[in-house]
């Protein structure tokens, strides 16, 4: 086998998720991010059948709206963690947190780690990240460039120009994900059906992207517990094993051309895929279900090409053919994810990936699914962007 990236150390199947705790998603102004996080941690412990003192590592990420007070959620739940790490607030980091937790356990820093994300985007927006920008100067701000939607819109514009991408194809993604969410009781958009007419007539936000091309703005928290495979079997739920993970960044393209790190013509994720699939010893054909990062419809579409699910330029017809549906050729984003279930950065995908591997997908469960691809993306404007993924198995 050709391995272009990555080393020979394999972590395959050595670590497993054993606990999932998810609060309600939506508008929850009465709870602070700390309270949401503490509730998610308590639910994850109960889900695993684990005592608080069995957790010794904590890695957390501020969601949009911020406000998570470092160890406060641990104090509220009685977790005496000795390892406390905060990571960047980017959609790429859920998978990075999996890699960090595994790295920490490999090196003996801890044996059981809780990964936490808490968002207060609906109730505590403004002033925080993506709330209108910092008060100091900003070169993009001088031109009116705010928020990641412009990156996505500029990317969609390039796809329309290069490959003839149609709004109906982006709409097919929005509708497929909404149909999943309509079947999931805990989805923010569970009760809200949309049609292609609704999509095509929706108000533009950053043209060519409309309201339904953007992910949701919601509150909520999730906590995921990962531990050593030999400990995993002591807990209540069937362990979900990590087969591999990978990371890439468009900075790798730096110097090739002035526009290359902006990835407007497609994300740079080849190395992430090769690392993860190399570690797992599988190929994309072995994937039964995928949970692809979807801050915007175009992000999901482009990654189908970056990970080799479609050839470059072919993802539009692929999604329009219904490929991402439960009975399609590549069932994906089975909760409705960021566009329709709830946006918790990359935790939206990771959480649903674990649920699918446990068989907890309800009517959206992919039958006999054994292997799941989870992806993430992070980065803005002139920074380029990171692509991350991990592969889970039941």
């Amino acid at each position, binding site marked *: 086998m050709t391995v272009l990236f990555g080393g020979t150390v394999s972590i395959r199947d050595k670590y497993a998720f054993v606990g999932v705790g998810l609060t309600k998603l939506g508008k929850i102004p009465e709870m602070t991010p700390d309270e949401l996080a503490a509730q998610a941690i308590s639910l994850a412990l109960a889900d695993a059948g684990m005592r608080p003192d069995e957790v010794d590592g904590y890695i957390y990420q501020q969601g949009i709206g911020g406000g998570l007070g470092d160890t406060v959620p641990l104090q509220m739940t009685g977790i005496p963690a000795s390892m406390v790490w905060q990571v960047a607030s980017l959609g790429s980091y859920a998978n990075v947190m999996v890699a960090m937790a595994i790295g920490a356990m490999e090196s003996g820093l801890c044996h059981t780690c809780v990964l936490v994300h808490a968002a207060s985007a609906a109730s505590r927006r403004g002033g925080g990240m993506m709330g209108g920008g910092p008060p100091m*100067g900003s*070169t*993009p*701000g*001088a031109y009116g*460039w705010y928020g990641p939607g*412009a990156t996505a819109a500029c990317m969609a514009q390039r796809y329309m120009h290069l490959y003839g991408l149609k709004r109906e194809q982006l709409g097919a993604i929005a509708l497929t994900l909404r149909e999943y969410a309509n079947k999931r009781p805990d989805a923010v958009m569970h009760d809200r059906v949309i049609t292609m007419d609704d999509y095509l007539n929706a108000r533009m936000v950053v*043209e060519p992207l409309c309201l339904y091309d953007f992910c949701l703005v919601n509150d909520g928290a999730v906590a995921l517990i990962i531990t050593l495979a030999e400990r995993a079997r002591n807990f209540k739920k069937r362990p979900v094993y990590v087969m591999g993970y990978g990371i890439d960044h468009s900075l790798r393209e730096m110097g090739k051309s*002035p526009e290359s790190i902006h990835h407007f013509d497609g994300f740079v994720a080849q190395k992430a895929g090769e690392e993860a699939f190399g570690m797992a010893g599988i190929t994309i054909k072995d994937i039964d279900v995928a949970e692809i990062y979807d801050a915007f419809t175009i992000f999901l579409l482009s990654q189908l090409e970056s990970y080799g699910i479609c050839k470059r330029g072919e993802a539009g017809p692929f999604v329009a053919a219904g490929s991402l549906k439960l009975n399609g050729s590549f069932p994906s984003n089975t909760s409705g994810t960021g566009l329709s279930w709830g946006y918790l950065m990359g935790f939206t995908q990771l959480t649903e990936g674990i649920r699918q591997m446990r068989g907890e997908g309800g009517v959206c469960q992919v039958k006999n699914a054994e292997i799941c691809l989870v992806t993430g993306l992070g980065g803005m404007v002139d920074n380029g962007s990171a692509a991350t993924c991990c592969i889970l198995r039941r």
Partner: protein
Amino acid sequence: MPEVKKQLPVITESNKAFWEAARRHELVAYRCLNCGALYLQQIDCVACGSPRMEWVKVSGRGEVFTFCIYHQPFHPAWKDDIPYNVAYVKLEEGPLLMTNIVGCDNKDIYIGMPVEVIFEDVAAEVTLPKFKPAG
């Protein structure tokens, strides 16, 4: 309510030559004396690693690489500009520049559209290079 002002560029040691030139209504780029690669801020050459660089005037001509149109303000200072465009222009000499396209309707902007620089004095010490349809 005090008026919310539009943000201004962050002018630093490594990009001040660019903004000082804009103030004189000149567009400049930082050129590698070894391989000729061009950048919009002071760095060692990414393409060949050479530290031998100089600021040079560029043509100010280019084409629209990509663009988007804001229909919703994400910053209060922009609410009266809705709908407005933000574009990336690829200069004839290579570099990619974030900007606004002026002097035409948003609906007439397209990828590949030939454009040329104009300069907008937005504050006492700050001038923004923007682009209008060429010709």
